[in-house]
């Protein structure tokens, strides 16, 4: 008894030792700035930057619909930017999903050696700086760029398409950047897919389409949901891609936040905008966690039954 107690105590101690550094690190460098942001978002902006320590709910009012009636009418421009960011992020998720799903299927059915090679290719973009890769896209998408030249060369278009500094350019750029993040979780769940399920479905009379809709899609759903979340979160708050490929014309919430902190020096408003992004992401994560716990309940129930 005593021996077990001490060994358990030692286990606890070593666990504590292992967990303490990351806990302290996250506490200092993640929780503290976050707390500052939360507090700032409820403070009045100073006239020349900085904050005035008064409770002030008009930072959120400016975004959501109650403005300071003394100076201005409510302008939905911030809400529009926020909703556009959501739309662009969702489009990015959808596009990368459509590209990655068949690719993951195809690669997962390859022999081992070739599989590893393709997985390596998927991670290859990480070896080059993001900014460099995005400027390469500027060269591709601009009116005199590679894409327009090529399309005009083969006679598909008469004059250059207006691609650069549009929503399309931003979506293309973000899809390009986040494809590996979509691919890996998708691949993980597609590779686990038991092909005998597909055979069983065909055996029971299902056509290929029925098999896909009723078996393959639901079984690989965790990968689809996981990949979508991992792509949606950084897309929503992204500001590098829209500032390089969207120029001044396409503003996403990330650019707006950057602007508030750096040029406008309205930290409280910037913080409130940041909170909006976080709220959207948290809502999404909560739905995801709820879905996953339900799955978990089934498997634990099964384990209890076995024992």
């Amino acid at each position, binding site marked *: 008894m005593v021996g077990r107690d001490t060994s358990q105590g030692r286990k606890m101690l070593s666990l504590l030792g292992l967990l303490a550094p990351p806990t302290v690190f996250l506490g200092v460098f993640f929780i503290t700035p976050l707390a500052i942001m939360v507090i700032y978002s409820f403070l009045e902006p100073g006239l020349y930057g900085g904050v005035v320590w008064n409770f002030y709910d008009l930072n959120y009012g400016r975004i959501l619909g109650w403005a300071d009636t003394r100076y201005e009418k409510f302008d939905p421009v911030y809400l529009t930017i926020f909703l556009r960011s959501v739309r662009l992020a969702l489009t990015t998720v959808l596009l990368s999903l459509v590209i990655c799903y068949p690719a993951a299927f195809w690669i997962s059915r390859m*022999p081992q050696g070739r599989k590893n090679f393709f997985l390596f290719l998927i991670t290859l973009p990480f070896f080059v700086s993001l900014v460099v890769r995005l400027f390469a896209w500027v060269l591709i998408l601009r009116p005199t760029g590679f894409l327009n030249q090529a399309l005009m060369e083969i006679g598909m278009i008469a004059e250059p398409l207006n691609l650069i500094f549009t929503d399309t350019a931003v979506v293309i750029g973000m899809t390009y950047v986040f494809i590996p993040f979509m691919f890996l979780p998708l691949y993980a769940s597609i590779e686990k897919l*038991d092909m*005998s*399920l597909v*055979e*069983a*479905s*065909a*055996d*029971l*009379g*299902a*056509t290929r389409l*029925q098999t896909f809709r*009723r*078996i393959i899609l*639901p*079984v690989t*759903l965790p990968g689809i949901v996981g990949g979508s979340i991992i792509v949606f979160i950084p897309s929503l708050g992204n500001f590098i891609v829209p500032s390089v490929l969207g120029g001044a014309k396409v503003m996403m919430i990330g650019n707006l936040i950057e602007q508030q902190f750096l040029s406008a020096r309205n930290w409280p408003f910037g913080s409130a905008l940041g909170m909006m992004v976080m709220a959207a992401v948290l809502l999404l994560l909560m739905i995801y966690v709820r879905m996953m716990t339900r799955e978990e309940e*089934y*498997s634990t*129930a*099964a384990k209890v*039954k*076995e024992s």
Partner: protein
Amino acid sequence: MSPILSVKDATKRYSTPEGGTITALDGVSLDVQPNEFVTLLGPSGCGKTTLLRTISGFEDLEGGSIEIDGATVTHLPAHRRPVNTVFQRYALFPHLSIARNVAYSLEVAGLKRAEIGSRVGEMLELVGLDGFGDRKINQLSGGQQQRVALARSLVARPKILLLDEPLSALDKNLRQKMQQELKTLQEEVGIAFVFVTHDQEEALTMSDRVAVLSDGKIQQFGTPEDLYRRPRNEFVARFLGAGNLLGATVSECKDAGAIALLESGQVAHLPSTDAACGEKIKLLIRPEDVRMDCTKDAGALRFEGTVRQVLFVGTDYIVHIETDDGTELKATLRPRAEDRGAITAPGARITLFVQQEALHPVTSAKVA
């Protein structure tokens, strides 16, 4: 009665990664009657699973044809064939409840909800799982999963049920129980079952007829007793049950039988043999046909030798003896109480007898 399944001259080759080819099926022909329980038996790589997968439609034949209930299905895709399969690892859909798993084939066929409900209910009752419909697959034991797989593949009323080693994942006791249940189920639903296994005991217990496969060919197709008592060649004799195979030469062929000369010099009278005069053959003696007491049959073979090893297995003793001319003989003996002392000690002298009727000649050549 016309056969429900008729496989003619089925041929299938695979190319290996090294560039060679493997012949999985080499001109296999097989007829299965309605209501028949047929087992495809053989060692791994013999082609039995390939044969099953060409019937279900997962593999395409290179040559030959498959007819189900008189209709040619050789190039029909799997989802349009009137057969269903029970898979080795069941392949149950993990995201669906048990009822939805069973209902699957009816749902994709677009049946009405009410009919699906009643047929699924009937099926679950048939396999003894009524009341389990709402549970998830991973809440079931192996045996229960097995039954769901059976219910799922029977609910669409296939003309033939194909079973790909469905019992291999179960432990021994459960396996024996499921063997009986399968046999009962097959009699109840009254359709043909084609069952694949590498377990000879399973094949003998359940089947009406067994096809023994090796090297992509059917070595012998017959009733379990036929295969056990009258194997056509050495491969079948060795694959089914234990046996002694003694080398012999056919010395005299007559209308009413043949005479074979054993390597030990003994003379055996055989009822009949396909072997030609002078051909080298093997004589099959099942261990349980070896006896301790002298028989009235004057022509019985007599083996004198020394006990080398004795295994006590409950009712019987499995005794390995070496005869004085060096032949090894395995016998399953059930000696009377007063004789037990004579065999239980290795090194003891012993005399054993085998009746003429227990001898079965087999050729060493496989079906080619």
